[in-house]
Every structure is written in C-alpha cells, then in structure tokens.
C-alpha cells in the first residue's frame, strides 16, 4: 500500500470515529440521531471491567436489544452530559481516543469517568468498539454499591 493510501485510510478512519462523537452529542441533545449509526451490523462491542454491565456484545442487534435496554435506565439525563474526546491516536483502520465523560446516575449523583476508547473501522463503519474506563467508579456510582 502506498504511503498516501495508508494516510488516506488513517484519515478516513478518524473521520468515522469523529462522526461517532458528533452523533452521540446530537443524540444526547435530543436531536433524534441514532448514535450507533456508524457501527456496523456485526460490530464487536466490549465494555471492560467486572461490573454487571461489563461484557461483549456481538453485533449491533445485541447492543440495541440487550446492552442499551440494561444501561439506559441506570443513567441520569441532564444538560451538559456527554462524552468529550480529548485526543485521537490513529493508524490505518484503528483509532484510540482518550475521552472524559460527564454524566450521572438516576439519583443525580455525578458520574464523571475517564475513558480509553478503541475503534476499528472497515468500509466506513465501526466494526470493533472497546470502552475501557474506571469500571470500579462505574460500578459504585451507576449501581450504587460501595467497596468493603
């Protein structure tokens, strides 16, 4: 593959991932956008950690029918909430993003996590998504548990 082609693939992959964040922000703003429209039908969707919501979902169907129905009721909704990308490191069809999140649990307790997000892109769609974060914080705030 020529050097220009490799750079083109990298740039295109990063564009797809940046669009994911744009879509997510629009969805949180109530604009009626499906934030997962850049994910392929056979996406591998991973949430790291040992929490009740950690795991692997194979395909967008499982994400929409299993993961989201479990996750959404646990999260609060408020102005200013979102996932804010800080840094993109991309090469070829792989993109890593460092991000900060602002959110809350259903009781309104702040849930502000720090993320390492991994994306793999094929034919303009995200085929692999890994959400790596402070799962201990997520478990305690979202599920309202404490450590003993």
């Amino acid at each position, binding site marked *: 593959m020529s050097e220009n082609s490799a750079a083109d693939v990298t740039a295109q992959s990063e564009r797809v991932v940046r669009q994911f964040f744009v879509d997510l922000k629009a969805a949180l703003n109530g604009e009626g956008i499906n934030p997962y429209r850049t994910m392929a039908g056979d996406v591998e969707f991973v949430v*790291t*950690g040992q929490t009740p919501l950690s795991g692997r979902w194979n395909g967008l169907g499982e994400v929409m029918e299993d993961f989201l129905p479990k996750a959404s009721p646990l999260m609060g909704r408020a102005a200013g909430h979102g996932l804010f990308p800080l840094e993109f490191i991309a090469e070829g069809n792989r993109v890593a993003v460092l991000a900060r999140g602002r959110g809350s649990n259903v009781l309104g307790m702040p849930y502000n996590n720090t993320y390492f*997000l991994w994306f793999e892109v094929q034919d303009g769609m995200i085929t692999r998504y890994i959400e*790596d974060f*402070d799962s201990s914080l997520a478990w305690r705030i979202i599920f309202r548990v404490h*450590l003993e």
Partner: protein
Amino acid sequence: MPSSPKDVVREFVARLNDGGDPWTLLSATAVVTINGTTPLSGRYPGFALIRGILVDSARIVIASLKVRIDQLIGTGPRVAALLDLSGRSVAGTAFNAEGRLCGCVFAVNAGMIEEVILFPDTSLIEIVLYGRKYVPDV
C-alpha cells in the same frame, strides 16, 4: 537500540517481561498515570514516585505480571496500545487468565518514554488484588 516510538514501547514491554532493565527506557522525569480510583491509581511524576509509591505498592499485592501487546498504533510520538495484563496476586490468585485487554498510551521522545497512561481493569484490581467486594448501598 529501538528507533521508532513503537519499537521503544515494544522493547520496554519485553524488558518488563524478561527481567531486563526497563528503567533505562524511561525518562527520569517520566510521568506514569494509572487511571481510576484504586490504591494503585494516580499520577506518578519521576522515578522516585514511580518506584517509591507505584512499584513498591504494586509489589505488595502482585506476585507476578506478564504484559502482552495485542495492538500498537501511532505514527507520531504518542502511541496507543491494547495490552493483556495477566499474572498472579501475592495471595496466589490468578488474574485475567481470560486475556481481556486494556488501554495504554505512551509518549516517546528521543528514544525515551516520557509518559505512560494505563487504563487497567480497576474493578478487577479491587477484587483480586485487594480482596474487596462491591456491596449494595443501604
């Protein structure tokens, strides 16, 4: 001698695994950040704190650790990796035998690592290394 930032990271990980000296690839003013809120988490600037707090604290709970690079990307001075961190606690419990991956970012300058930001499985750290449990709030 490793040349590219990715080569430096590969050599650093190789030395971590084979008992070599990884410190000669770390800048004396390197900053290591362990994401999260575990007893090992925090920002450690410089050798004195990396060794004196992070490494010494980790040795109390980790008996053995193996680092495998699953993915490594980056065309500039900052590289991102998916790592498989597995091993055994001092209590004898194996951790991450499943080979689950975690994220890590390295900043490399002139052949030396200046920054490491690791995103470990923090709930696994609490459970396996510190023997803690997550209990519902009243």
